[in-house]
């Protein structure tokens, strides 16, 4: 490994401690390549990760672990105009993107 982000797992631990995402329909804004997504997606009902950068969304889709193929989807979207129906999600995560 040549570089690593938060190998101590402080972000995942904090996320788990402040928000119960088990069974939740989650919208993640600024998901990028899914670095944060993979830390909670396994316990969510479903996750839609959005990013305005098409390349990042491509990485998110390509990097989905096999067990999450039907649970995580990436969508190219601008956070100012979200292409989703009203009241569709139980939780929204702004991942370093506000």
């Amino acid at each position: 490994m040549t570089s690593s982000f938060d190998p101590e797992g402080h972000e995942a631990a904090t996320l788990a401690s402040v928000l119960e995402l088990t069974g939740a329909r989650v919208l993640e804004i600024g998901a990028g390549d899914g670095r944060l997504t993979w830390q909670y997606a396994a316990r969510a009902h479903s996750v839609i990760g959005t990013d305005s950068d098409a390349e990042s969304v491509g990485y998110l889709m390509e990097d989905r672990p096999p067990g999450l193929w039907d649970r995580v989807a990436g969508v190219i979207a601008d956070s100012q105009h979200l292409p989703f129906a009203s009241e569709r999600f139980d939780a929204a995560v702004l991942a370093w993107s506000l």
Partner: protein
Amino acid sequence: MVHALSEMWRTLAAGGVLLDIRPYLPFGPLELVRGPEARSLGRLDEAEFDPGDPAADNAVAEVTRRGLFALRHTSSFYSSSYWDSVAELREYLKDWYDVARLPRRLAGEARTALRRAGSSGRLRLKTYVVVNVMRKIPG
């Protein structure tokens, strides 16, 4: 930002939760880490950056004032990033070019420190990250 938060309010079900995770910059000092030991090498050039993110804070305050969300909880943690080379650190900092740059002098010191540390040496930056948990107030 207020419009984006309003969009999130719209897409959340009644009682839905918004989690706002963001770094409270500036970065900590650039460190050389070798095993349990860490040594500061100096700070990035962040002269043009105001600590925190006043614009984001104002946006959160505005949607709270409008009655869209209620702040329920705030937490924080330190996130550490590690690199094996100055080139990799530079690549990472491209995403932060508007707030932080690696001065040439510090880059040179980092290269020297890595060379002297051998294969176990790594560069580290710590970021203080703030987490706001907000609950949607149904309209």
